[in-house]
């Protein structure tokens, strides 16, 4: 019975916790290995904007005490661990006194929303095209058409975004140039707002989809060709099953398994993969936040967003690991 055993679940959760712990440690070490320190950077920024700052040393010392930077490294490490696990990333340096977790909480829904629309679209279109490209019974014209749609695959998504903005927003004025929704609107559940949201979302989604689905198409096509040669495909034909049933229940069903694994890895793009596209469309997601925090050396925000991205990746991998045995019954038995 599609084996999701307790043993398997425990193993996966332990691996998940280990991954998160190791990455927190790396974030901690990298921050401490980097030259300079955030307090000096913050004070330097303040002095740059306000002219002279009095009692600089006292301020720095005060903040160091406040952030616990005078504690021994192991103590700092334990505090850091606790803070990250409770999503306490400290104040943002550029949006001071706003807390980093508030910024992330505000940005995350936009990124996830964008990703939740984009990724299923990419996965669906990519695999559908890949399956049709490899299927023996696909009509010839369709087989000739599909490769032509894949010429954008080698483009960076930013470039596709810029081209789309130029052609569809700037020249043809079909879509707005930037922003997640119309200027001056307040987020609400009205038809007006939602249609504006969709209208603004089409170009970012399209530029992400068009550069990515070709990867899935090629992967799926390769797997379909491999599956085609399997003995069970021959037997399915010999049984006189309807061709379309053989396609989806025998060929696609088996060919898609590695694609689902790849989807787990691709899930992290829900948060991190659209940084530049978000930036050029001025979308309010985590990508834009990472982009601005790196540009402004906002250490706390960089740490916070890195942690969120890593956590997101680890959670997506865990979820896929738990779903996978239901799709491929052979998985959970390995390593028991």
């Amino acid at each position: 019975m599609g084996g999701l055993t307790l043993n398997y679940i425990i193993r996966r959760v332990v691996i998940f916790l280990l991954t998160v712990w190791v990455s927190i440690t790396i974030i901690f070490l990298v921050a401490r290995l980097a030259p300079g320190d955030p307090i000096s950077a913050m004070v330097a920024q303040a002095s740059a904007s306000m002219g002279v700052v009095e009692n600089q040393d006292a301020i720095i010392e005060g903040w160091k005490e406040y952030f616990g930077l005078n504690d021994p490294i192991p103590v700092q490490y334990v505090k850091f661990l606790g803070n990250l696990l409770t999503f306490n990333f400290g104040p943002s340096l550029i949006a001071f006194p706003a807390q980093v977790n508030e910024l992330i909480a505000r940005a995350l829904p936009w990124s996830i929303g964008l990703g939740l629309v984009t990724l299923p679209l990419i996965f669906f279109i990519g695999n559908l095209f890949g399956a049709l490209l490899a299927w023996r019974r696909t009509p010839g014209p369709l087989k000739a058409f599909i490769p032509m749609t894949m010429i954008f695959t080698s483009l960076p998504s930013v470039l596709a975004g810029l081209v789309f903005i130029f052609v569809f927003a700037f020249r043809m004025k079909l879509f707005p140039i930037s922003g997640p929704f119309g200027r001056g609107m307040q987020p609400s559940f009205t038809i007006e707002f939602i249609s504006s949201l969709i209208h603004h979302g089409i170009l970012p989604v399209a530029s992400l989809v068009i550069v990515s689905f070709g990867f899935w198409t090629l992967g799926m096509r390769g797997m379909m060709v491999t599956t085609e040669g399997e003995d069970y495909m021959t037997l399915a034909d010999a049984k006189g099953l309807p061709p379309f049933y053989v396609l989806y229940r025998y060929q696609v069903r088996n060919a898609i398994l590695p694609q689902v694994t790849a989807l787990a890895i691709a899930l992290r793009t829900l948060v991190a993969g659209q940084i530049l596209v978000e930036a050029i469309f001025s979308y309010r997601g985590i990508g834009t936040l990472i982009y601005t925090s790196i540009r402004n050396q906002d250490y706390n925000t960089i740490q916070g967003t890195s942690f969120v991205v890593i956590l997101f990746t680890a959670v997506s991998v865990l979820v896929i690991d738990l779903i996978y045995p239901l799709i491929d019954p052979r998985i959970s038995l390995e390593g028991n």
Partner: protein
Amino acid sequence: MAEIPAEQVQRRRRKVLEVRNLRVHYETPTGDVIAVAGIDFDLYDGETLGLVGESGSGKSTAAYGILKLVQPPGRIVEGDVTLDGDELVHMNDSSFRQIRWTKLALIPQGAMNSLNPTMRVHRQITDAIEAHEGKQDKEALRERVLELFRMVGLPQRVYNMFPHELSGGMKQRVCIAMGIALHPTVVIADESTSALDVVVQRVVAQTMLRVKQALGVSMIMIGHDMGLMAQMVDRIAVMYAGKLVEVAPVETIFDEPMHPYSQVLIESIPSLKERKPLKITEGITHDPRNPPPGCIFQLRCPHVMERCRSEAPPLRELLMRHEVACHLYNDDGSLIEGAKLEAAS
């Protein structure tokens, strides 16, 4: 020659499958590989025909040609296959799909991955049933599958299992159950027992024979295990390089093989009492893309004559139910003048 008993003649029953001049080629950049070079044979009602030959002789390709399952770059070049009065080779796909499994079934090498790893065992049997008989009551289908399991000796618990949870022998039984699910007229068993160890092989082979007799189906068994063939089949067809060289009842071919290839093949069967050299390695094989004119076996034949180099011997019925393709014999089955078939040892 001894008189053929009348009862033996009566055993020739209705032909269920007639194969005429079947040719299957595989396309390669340097020319077509002629895998099956025009073969003719009949399968009689209730009979088991063994198709034997070494690897690459085209026996599996011939079977897949009959089933129209030859995958590109292979293709059926010409030939006619008639099953119960229906011509199969030129039949369109959707009509042939109706024939598949209801009249012409395949028992593959089930120990390999002939079963879909993502489907439960019962579903892989019921999808064939439902494809040909339409949607059915779940409980009735379940009863039917369990009855098939009983016939092939599978326990009920297999019903809900996945293929990877079964042993090789069990998978093979599932394939047999699947093959007979719709009571086909002809079953083709393609090396069905090759990947199993000898004990399981014997049990599975007996199961296959028992089921075949219970249902009265005709069967073509493909294999290279002459010992197993001797116990299982009524007639043997020996294939060499895409051609049938000898077709005869199983006792006859073991006692008095007539074609030089069959002779070395049977002489090479090892026994416990004595070691025997493998005769068949002598001589070289030809390029399958470009067979020499004349007899297909001329390069390896110990009795090759001038005539063999230019003229291909047709498959002739020399004795009752004993067909041979060789120039060494006259039409009445006697050796031609001057030929000596000294014991080749």
